[in-house]
């Protein structure tokens, strides 16, 4: 039943897109309105709430002391976790889609990591012994498509707010800080859906239902890409990927002003 309603709606999306139109009136290469609200949690070392249209994400960073990996004794690291909360959508209730959440987390992680947003050496406290691990966790609280971009924006906004806790006797002093985390780059994801042969920026949920394929590209500055992820059962031509890349550079430039 429900599936049938989705199918009808998805067909509507496809018909519109064939005419170059979208369900919500946007242009094919237009992103939804983005809002960024910083510092949503005092217990977090950095945090932000991001809305991308009706998609809403809450992100927080916790700086935790740990031991470095033996093969990288002078580097800290990051860890990205995502939860698609049941309250975000009636569809997430029957067991939230674990594989999807893992994919989103890993793609956002790659964007930040490979985009060299953070100089991992700057997270070293004492070589071989003590480093910072930045735990970046975000929660999708209302899902209307494209948690990739919303999560990427929220993660970066939260990192940009992050303070480094003070250390005493190798332990964190609560609620005291020694400075701010400095970001070397501002890598951001841009996601495009392919629907009926057209490339559509920043898909809403019903567009995701209609898509043949999905492509996400993270760029860290005006010249450098740092992560790709193609998803879904369809395919892209090389020329289409090139078009997606161009959209990503343009989109990231705009987003960078907000985070």
């Amino acid at each position, binding site marked *: 039943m429900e599936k049938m309603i989705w199918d009808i709606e998805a067909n509507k999306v496809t018909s519109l897109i064939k005419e170059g139109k979208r369900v919500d009136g946007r242009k094919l290469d237009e992103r939804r309105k983005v809002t960024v609200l910083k510092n*949503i*949690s*005092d*217990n*977090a*070392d950095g*945090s932000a709430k991001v809305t991308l249209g*009706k998609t*809403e994400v*809450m992100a*927080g*960073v*916790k700086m*935790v002391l740990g031991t470095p990996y033996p093969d990288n004794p002078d580097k800290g690291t990051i860890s990205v*976790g995502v*939860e698609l*909360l*049941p*309250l*975000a*959508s*009636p569809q997430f*209730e*029957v067991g939230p889609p674990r594989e999807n959440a893992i994919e989103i987390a890993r793609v956002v992680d790659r964007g930040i990591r490979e985009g060299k947003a953070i100089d991992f050496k700057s997270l070293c406290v004492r070589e071989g012994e003590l480093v910072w691990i930045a*735990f970046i*966790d975000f*929660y999708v*609280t*209302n*899902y*209307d498509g494209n948690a990739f971009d919303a999560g990427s924006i929220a993660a970066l906004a939260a990192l940009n707010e992050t303070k480094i806790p003070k250390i005493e006797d190798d332990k964190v002093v*609560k*609620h005291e800080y020694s400075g701010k985390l400095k970001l070397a780059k501002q890598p951001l994801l841009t996601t495009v859906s392919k629907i009926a042969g057209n490339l559509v920026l920043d898909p809403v949920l019903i567009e995701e239902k209609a898509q043949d394929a999905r492509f996400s590209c993270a760029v860290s500055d005006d010249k450098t890409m740092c992560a790709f992820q193609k998803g879904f059962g369809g395919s892209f031509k090389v020329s289409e990927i090139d078009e997606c890349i161009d959209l990503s550079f343009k989109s990231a430039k705009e987003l960078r002003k907000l985070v």
Partner: protein
Amino acid sequence: MAKKDEKIEYVKNGKRLDGRKVDEIRPLKMKVGVLPNADGSAYLEWGQNKVLVGVHGPKEALPKHKQNPYKGLVRFTYRMATFSVPDRKNPRPGRRESEISKVSGEALEKSIFLERFPNCAIDIYVEIFDSNAGSRAAGITAASVALADAGIPMKDLVCAVGVGKAGGEIILDLNKDEEDAPDAVDIPIAIMPRTEEIVLLQMDGPITKPEWNKAVKLGIQGCNQVYEAQKVALREKFAKVEKGK
């Protein structure tokens, strides 16, 4: 935070460490209808606590063998974000979250006309994004408002608050510093204010009966303060609805 064995006066000249009076709750802001995809929702800031609640339902309860042919089920999930506490929380739900989910769901049952929803379930999701003592009271309070927002028929709202003891004083709505007092007693309480029926009551820490008698009076008074805030938030929402299309 209080140093060990240091003698702290938690109430001095009628004022608490954060300037509140003994019977004063922390600032409380509520917004109703904040999540487009939920049937009902509310966002609550109460002191440092920040709580988001979504309600889905009533809808058919699944799996079927869990259905009750006489009345609907209330399923309550209380979860804390990893960054909502001083030390990063393990992302997996723990035993504390399980217990709070259970008693909070039970606290709301009596307020809902559940007999009108046989074989159905009402799912309540409470997400804590920031905390500082009192997050379960905040969760229940916001959940009741979200149920109203979902249009679920209720006898009354449920309002909750913490009451307790710190430095020998019975005080309302303890914050974290007060909860860390060496002699601290913490008593979360929830009532249906019209009848003053107690629907949630827990307690932690040594207390005498006279102290309890004082505390419960203060707690009920606190619940009534919360009740007023709930009504204001709901009125705002419905005013907006009427003004809007």
